[in-house]
């Protein structure tokens, strides 16, 4: 009898435990958002926002807003980044960085004319600001002004010889213009600066396959891409490309 009661109690307790309310989807999301709030990157943002209240002048306010904009952009929060950059420009319109930060946010939002105005202002204030030239290159690429894009990217890399993103985009634009050898040079430059940059190898694969007609190098490049990015979203497609080249 005692044993029977024990077993029945155990069953009752177990069923209560299993029937206890599971977290709702909304609650799970709230928990996750809370974890993210305490991430280092967000703590840094909070510190900067606190620093704003004790900024001694407009120049410092502009600098802090610029730093906030940059972190928000890094995270991908483009609308917040644009708003912060606007504040940076407002407090110190002579800041090339502020105009650049605003310009690149506008570019992501596809507000091309406004982006162009801001980026042009940035380079007119500081012609040596390589990131502004790079974004102007991107703007021209989006507008399909490929020759202009090449000029802008070349300007960016002449000012910063380790600017691998600009070299990648330069190589990619030269690929679109079917300037095979020049494109290859740009991509090899990326490889010398940042050999673990996975998209480089996909781009080289496309160049060798479609412009330089070197199937062997193309297949090797695609394999290198998958080696560096085994979980690439288009991995199944790339495997087929390799197979087609090797057959």
């Amino acid at each position, binding site marked *: 009898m005692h044993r029977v009661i024990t077993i029945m109690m155990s069953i009752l307790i177990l069923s209560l435990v299993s029937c206890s309310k599971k977290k709702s989807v909304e609650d799970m999301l709230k928990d996750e958002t809370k974890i993210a709030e*305490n991430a280092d990157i967000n703590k840094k943002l909070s510190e900067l926002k606190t620093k704003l209240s004790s900024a001694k002048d407009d120049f410092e306010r502009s600098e802090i807003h610029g730093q906030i904009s940059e972190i928000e952009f890094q995270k991908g929060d483009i609308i917040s980044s644009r708003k912060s950059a606007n504040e940076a420009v407002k407090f110190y319109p002579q800041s090339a960085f502020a105009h650049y930060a605003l310009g690149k946010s506008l570019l992501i*939002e596809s507000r091309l*004319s406004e982006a162009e105005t801001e980026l042009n202002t940035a380079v007119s204030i500081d012609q040596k600001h390589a990131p502004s030239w790079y974004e102007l290159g991107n703007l021209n690429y989006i507008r399909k002004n490929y020759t202009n894009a090449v000029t802008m990217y070349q300007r960016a890399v002449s000012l910063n010889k380790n600017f691998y993103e600009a070299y990648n*985009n330069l190589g990619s634009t030269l690929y679109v213009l079917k300037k095979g050898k020049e494109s290859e040079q740009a991509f090899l430059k990326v490889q010398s600066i940042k050999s673990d940059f996975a998209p480089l190898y996909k781009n080289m694969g*496309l160049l060798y396959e479609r412009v330089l007609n070197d199937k062997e190098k193309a297949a090797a490049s695609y394999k290198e891409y998958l080696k560096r*990015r085994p979980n*690439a*979203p*288009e991995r*199944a497609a790339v495997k087929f490309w390799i197979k087609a080249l090797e057959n």
Partner: protein
Amino acid sequence: MKKLITTIIIICMFAGLSLLSDEEKICFAVTPFIPLTESAEAENAGTNAASILENSFSSGKWFEFRKSGELQSFIDDLSLAQAGIGDENALLAKGKSLQIKYLTVGSVAKFGNHYEIDSRSVNIDNWGIMHSSGCSAIDVESACNFINKDVEITLTREDLEKKEKETANLPIIAVSRFEEGNLKAQNAGYGGAFSEVLNSELGARSKIAAVERTHLKSVIDAKEIEMCGIYGSGTDKAFSERGIQYRVDGEIKIFPSSICIRYKVNSTTEERTIYMGFSEIGSLNGIRPLARKIAQEIEDAINNKIGTLQIQTQPSSADIVIDGQPSGKSPLLVSLVKGEHSIRASFQGYESADISIVLEPARVTEKIIKLEKISTELYDQAVNLEQRKNWEGAVAKYDEYINRYNTSGDVNRAVYRKGHIQLLYLNDAQAALATFESLVKRYPDSETRAEAYFGMARSYKSLKDNENLKSILEILYQKYPNELATEEAGYVFGGRY
């Protein structure tokens, strides 16, 4: 005799019933799920998941189930389509010939000991998602058991019929790609998994019609060069051609204790972004709840936050600027967030018109703008004064013209002439500089912009400001290398900087 008649009646009833149920049966098939990560592929998780679901589906009472073994050629073609290779129309035709009405497709991603499995049943005629289910779990079997239970409860004939009927008139949307925006994200490989999870969540919404991504892989995974900082350009047209009105894409970035996801909705017909959002979670556990929230948000944005504006002008082909952003030429059909918007219509030879409109969500608001022709009388008078060397009079008349028609792009020539007179005939370099600067600022796309920079250079030269002269010449040579004004600057200032 009575027994014989009764037996015959009973036999006829059974025959009738079975005929009836044969007619009502809908044909389903399950195809191998796509392994999204290397580790999922290594353990054949995609095939295993599909196999578990196939066994459960085959015991379905209201639909006819075609085993994958009967469809091998179709499945092979589907694999090619899912890899972005092969003809999707040929695939569609093959599916129809097999008399399959619904196909269950899906994906498996494995991150460490964590699986994300999604299953979607799609109408093979239009690849619309009719049912979706997904699960995060520690093994494939648990996830598939959850999906099976969900299917048993929520995938009924009535649900399917209701969904088919409702989606016929809903806005059509599809998920494109979520790029992995930093090295951590690329190494983790969350982009593909998130795209699939969002695909499932959008498929479960009742006020938008989601199209299966598998159908669009030839576009999504097209053999395209990868640019830094530029994503998704050029795919709107391909989506629009397939009847998809909205395209969702975005970017994932990973930081310690933070996964940041930026997402945007593009109108594929207008090839522009109509909605943008950002969210952040602490870990992979939040992926599915976040995708549900984003799907809700997108559904709400399309149905309740966004309206359509139709603009016509007289004359047509006017440049339309909405909220300060160039938006194309009239006639124009554009999606905008509900509420107040400013519109400017400009056409050469006509005064620009500035109006304000209030847009209601989920409705088309029509506006016809009539432009007034610019009278050239004042400009002709200014030119006349210039020809008679009455410089002050000409500047005053150009000013009158500029002030009268200041919003029109045609005014740029008057501004240029004014600056030219101030510099060369009135010897007022300071005033000329201000005039040329205003030309560059106010009319950024004007035909006289290179001339304006040349004018600024000459003004700086007169003012003996060599530093600014050098800066302006650099801009002129960089941005307008092929203009006559640039060539002239080369002669005047002795070569390129």
